[in-house]
């Protein structure tokens, strides 16, 4: 139940953001993270972004996924 999905912010208006998860779009609340920006990668849980990844953290996750033959967070 504590599952959180990594996603990219593709639209942003105040505390409402549209995220893309492997191309699927959804609106989420970004009021729980500091200074959300367009293009940020965030962890999303129950409709809220709960953490913002910096680029090196995205790279790490991408490399783990790639090693397992799974898709990354492009989108």
């Amino acid at each position: 139940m504590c599952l959180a999905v990594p996603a990219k912010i593709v639209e942003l208006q105040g505390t409402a953001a549209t995220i893309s998860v492997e191309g699927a779009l959804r609106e989420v609340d970004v009021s729980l993270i500091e200074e959300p920006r367009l293009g940020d990668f965030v962890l999303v849980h129950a409709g809220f972004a709960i953490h913002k990844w910096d680029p090196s953290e995205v790279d790490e996750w991408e490399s783990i996924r790639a090693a397992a033959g799974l898709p990354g967070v492009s989108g």
Partner: protein
Amino acid sequence: MGIDSGGGGTPRGERMNTLIPSINALARRIGREVNLMEVCGTHTMTAFRSGLRQLLPRNVRLISGPGCPVCVTDTNYLDAAISLCRRPDVLVATFGDLLRVPGSESSLENERAAGADIRVVYSPTDAVALARENPDRKIVFLGVGFETTAPTVAASIVAASAAGLQNYFVLAAHKTMPHAMAALLQDQQIRIDGFICPGNVTVITGAAIYRFICEQYRIPCVVTGFEPVDMLKATAMLLTQIADGRAEVEIEYSRSVTDRGNAIAQKLLAEVFVECDAGWRGLGMIPRSGLTIRAKYAAFDAVPALGVQFEPAQPHPGCRCGDVLRGLITPPDCKLFGTACTPTNPFGPCMVSSEGTCAAYFKYERRRAA
């Protein structure tokens, strides 16, 4: 005692086939049985789905603890939710996980089939939207979940308050993890040698919350991500600590977790909730392991606002979910498992929830055994 990201840092570049020889060597060096407990339903699922348990050496056991919020929710909470949904002016909004969990006499799913207005939502904000759209109804959101989920529920209460909504209520049964972990360590029936700490709970809380476990109980804690390689890396980190005689908090999931956590979410939690003692299914009452809504927001607390009563309730006779949640037995040790209790006809919450240990065993281990 510091917190670091684990002497080899992140799992970047590491592969299962390099970690497994290290784990085997560490297990030989330790030379006794080691019990590592994970306390997160997502870890349970990763471990079962990937076959991680089969990769570990014979003397390293991976035990699933009370990491599924649905599984640890008391029967009397479900009875209260069911009683609420029978009121004609109430609309219950819930995460889908709770629908099929049996209460004493019924489940939300049964009540919905009988005509109760129960809506499955993805986010507490969806429940607030229902309150806006249905001003003549009382919307009750079932606030279940750990520290990861509780801030999103807190945000919904603050939003409802700011919007002046008078028909949004939360039936809160949020649980917090550290003192439940300590309670497990005080239980003399099982020896735990290390904790695989929940990743997304710790995104919110920060890793420092586990330090007292290392200091008071001398048990190592590693905050862990959700890919199989994360869990293997965490296993290696825990075994290294055990072999070295150390008990420290380390962060394997450093791509998301810091020592201090999410300050905005913590502030929101403190604004809306206050720590309380909480009843855990299978574990009983654990001091300081729950969150209750502050008096300031009592108008949104379903318990006083709607006069909710919690009646004593007993789980199904024969159901051993409590022992499964404490790691005392594995699901096949329960007489009901796979016979009377299956995912299509579950008796206990560990079989209902997709993250429950019994459901995971049923789905993955039975097939392996067959």
